[in-house]
């Protein structure tokens, strides 16, 4: 084995977004030595982009809120294929995690009486999202970062992990390279926490950053862990659609939470025409009530129900898709999102209402984004929006309490782990998930490290991985352009395994993936190890292909429509056959991807009772 730089830690955290930082802080607090690795600079992780807020039943704005309601909302949003234990812990512990952030220096927007302000969001019964304008993710990551750096952890920036190292069954470290010099580095660790985020770069139209190549999913998969629910991908209903170069960039749900209306080319608020039965009791059926809901506090409209624009994301995205397909879209293939109607309604009630400054204060970065990138003033003109790939509900299968995967010592949290969100994630539930389950992952990883000795690093694993990595520059097997292969993959996934899916298209996608795998083995990059994005893309491609295959396989098997999976050939929910099961994929002995169904753990009676009370007094089909 060559003489590589080596670091030893009790706990190695891979990923420095909200989940990784929170895990690292927690592990450090127990006194173990912690290494934190990230492939960008510290503070730039995807979490920085989160806009709308963090969901926690603080009940600051509506005192009827409680963890029970939050739990029931999360399960309903996830269409009951969530891991109930995670959903429960998440709802119970989120308020404490948010208050803790405040104690670490976060400055949330305030209520009139000086507490943390909360806003409405899709699928949440009460105003629940603690926020800072529309830059909540920045506040969260900066707070954790500035707190974390004083905790004594070692941070390795711009360092990409390419292999998990194992000693027998257990994980014992990881191998990576520094982007700057292309040098390899070995991390020995007693426990490893994956917190690498999502897979959005498998699609052409996405709100996700370059980092979202599914690294953690793929690292865990290749190390022998299981991935569940990979068919469930959240297409956020409102991404920018124009100009083409910004297509996919997110328009926060906060715009609708603050009164934004969706209209088609005929000027119709089409969401009123399509409210699913199980959401009817809590959804407004007229404009007046919907607007009242937005300002419930101000006008004492507490009993008003939320406007249909705030139905769950999967549903709103599909409705927009339908409007466009049926020829009622906006000029550039989206629909309109406008703030004017709400402003006019307000003006009738409060004559001093100044729309211009109101929106600039409520939605500063959205204002900025449209102004700079779209040449459009959202306080005056309607925006054009359409669905964009946003979040993956599926991921590494972990235990609900400890976040440990099937592999001893390997933990996962944040977007790369699965379970809490079921078939569809509610807005705001990711940031709270990062905090609650990130903390738990750090805590249990530290316990694991204390209870277990260090494993042995095996040279053959290092040699194999470094040889593989260098092959793309030193002895490429072909002349494929890695960027081109990545683009072709994105186009194919967008077309064949996108928001509306069909069996025959997805079978074609599997064929396409075979060909792309072939091409990915033949990519090459210029011979240069220093900060060479071409070389990095060669390696990232293998992760993207792994997760794309997992998504496609799972999506073919789930022959029903539920949450993030919509099947044109099976447009109905089929709870009898699929309502109590998760899809599972793993790497078989021959290296091929295996698939099976697995029953969900049954929901305990006390939690069923909560779901019943928060619903229409009866249990949803899946839980009966």
């Amino acid at each position, binding site marked *: 084995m060559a003489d590589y730089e080596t670091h030893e830690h009790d706990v190695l955290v891979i990923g420095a977004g909200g989940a990784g930082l929170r895990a690292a802080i927690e592990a450090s607090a127990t006194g173990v030595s912690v290494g934190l690795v990230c492939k960008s600079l510290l503070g730039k992780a995807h979490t*920085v982009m989160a806009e709308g807020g963090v969901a926690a039943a603080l009940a600051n704005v509506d005192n009827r809120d409680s963890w029970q309601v939050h739990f029931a909302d999360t399960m309903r949003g996830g269409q009951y294929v969530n891991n109930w234990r995670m959903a429960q812990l998440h709802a119970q512990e989120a308020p404490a995690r948010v208050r803790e952030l405040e104690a670490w220096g976060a400055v949330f927007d305030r209520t009139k009486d*000086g507490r943390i302000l909360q806003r409405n969001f899709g699928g949440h019964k009460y105003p629940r999202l603690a926020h*800072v304008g529309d830059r909540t993710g920045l506040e969260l990551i900066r707070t954790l970062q500035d707190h974390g750096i*004083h905790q004594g952890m070692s941070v390795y920036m711009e360092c990409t992990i390419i292999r998990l190292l194992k000693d027998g069954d257990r994980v014992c470290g990881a191998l990576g390279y520094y982007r700057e010099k292309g040098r390899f580095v070995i991390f020995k660790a007693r426990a490893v926490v994956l917190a690498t985020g999502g897979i959005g770069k498998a699609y052409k139209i996405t709100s996700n950053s370059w980092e979202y190549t599914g690294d953690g999913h793929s690292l865990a998969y290749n190390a022998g862990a299981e991935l569940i629910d990979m068919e469930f991908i959240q297409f956020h209903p409102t991404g920018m659609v124009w100009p*083409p*170069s910004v297509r996919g960039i997110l328009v926060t749900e906060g715009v609708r939470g603050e009164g934004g209306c969706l209209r088609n080319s005929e000027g119709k608020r089409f969401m009123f025409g399509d409210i699913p039965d199980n959401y009817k009791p809590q959804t407004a059926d007229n404009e007046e009530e919907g607007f009242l809901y937005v300002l419930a506090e101000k006008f004492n409209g507490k009993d008003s129900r939320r406007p249909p624009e705030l139905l769950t994301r999967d549903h709103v995205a599909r409705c927009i898709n339908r409007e466009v397909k049926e020829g009622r879209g906006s000029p550039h293939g989206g629909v309109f999102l406008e703030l004017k109607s709400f402003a006019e309604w307000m003006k009738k009630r409060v004559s001093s209402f100044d729309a211009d400054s109101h929106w600039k204060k409520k939605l500063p970065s959205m204002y900025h984004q449209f102004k700079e*990138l779209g040449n459009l003033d959202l306080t005056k003109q309607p925006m054009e929006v359409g669905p964009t790939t946003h979040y993956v509900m599926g991921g590494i299968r972990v235990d609900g309490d400890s976040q440990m995967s099937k592999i001893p010592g390997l933990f996962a949290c944040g977007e790369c782990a699965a379970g809490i969100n079921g078939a569809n994630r509610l807005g705001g539930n990711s940031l709270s998930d990062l905090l609650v389950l990130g903390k738990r992952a750090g805590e249990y990883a530290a316990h694991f490290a204390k209870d277990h000795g260090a494993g042995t690093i095996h040279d053959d694993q290092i040699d194999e991985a470094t040889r593989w990595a260098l092959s793309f520059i030193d002895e490429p097997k072909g002349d494929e352009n890695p960027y*081109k292969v990545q683009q072709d993959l994105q186009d194919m996934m967008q077309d064949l395994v996108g928001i509306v899916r069909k069996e025959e298209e997805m079978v074609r996608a599997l064929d396409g993936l075979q060909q792309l795998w072939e091409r990915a083995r033949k990519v090459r990059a210029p011979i240069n190890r220093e900060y060479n*994005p071409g070389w990095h893309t060669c390696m990232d491609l293998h992760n993207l292909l792994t997760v794309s295959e997992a998504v496609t396989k799972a999506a073919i098997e789930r022959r029903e429509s539920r949450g993030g999976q919509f099947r044109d050939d099976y447009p109905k929910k089929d709870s009898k056959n699929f309502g109590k099961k998760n899809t599972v994929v793993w790497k078989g002995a021959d290296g091929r991807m295996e698939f099976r169904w697995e029953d969900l753990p049954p929901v305990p009676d006390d939690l069923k009772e909560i779901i019943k009370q928060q619903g229409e007094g009866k249990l949803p089909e899946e839980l009966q």
Partner: protein
Amino acid sequence: MAQAKFKIWRGTQDQGEFQEYTAEVGEGMVVLDCIHQIQATQAPDLACRWNCKAGKCGSCSAEINGRPRLMCMTRMDDERYITPGETTIVEPMHTFPLIRDLVTNVSWNYKINKMIPRFQPRQADAPDGTWRMSQEEVDRVQEFRKCIECFLCQDTCHVLRDHGKTEGEMFGGPRFMIRVASLEMHPLDTADRLPLVKDSLNIGLCNITKCCTEVCPEHIHITDNGIIPLKERVVDRFYDPIMWLFHKIFGDKQKAEPARTRTALPVIHEPAAKS
């Protein structure tokens, strides 16, 4: 589609040169789109940083025709920064050591940040074990907390850029002045960072040229709202003549010294050809 010509800095700290490229520019494209296109078709190993492509992460800082900008927020049709028909020059930030092409080593900033003592709130005093703060009380701090750490202000500030105050008698730079300000003006914070600002971050070296404020993509009023009030606090504490006498008589160890003054330097830095 129109074609646009680019000159992009290629190379490392030791050697490099501008190289010419051409990109096809479609509607709404930003400089970063062109860089990506060039990467994908002509220069696969062209190094640049980016994450969000939406002006939120502060990764893609560079100098475009000599102006410190986020590449993802600079549209090709924005004539304030791009002259139609002319070659656009893209180079890395000058103030930090070059790693390669458009990527610089900004680790110095992380070191400075670590010198700043963390937030230390007063005892929680609301019945629910938290605190009460009004929106008005936090407005100012929230402005500073919009910072995305693009370090464009650091790049522009002549004290760092031209006078090399990243070592020796070091200047913390505008980014960290407002970071300190965000803590010092936080209604709950109890720590005292004024000695740090004065003696280690050397706030006195700032001569209020406001170049930092001009380039901030988050439109933070770095100088007016952050640096000047901090300077006033430092002056009140350390240089006020009555306080000075008071400290002298009662034996404060703090040695008073006159406020430093420096000559102002040119505000705008023209696109300097890299030598």
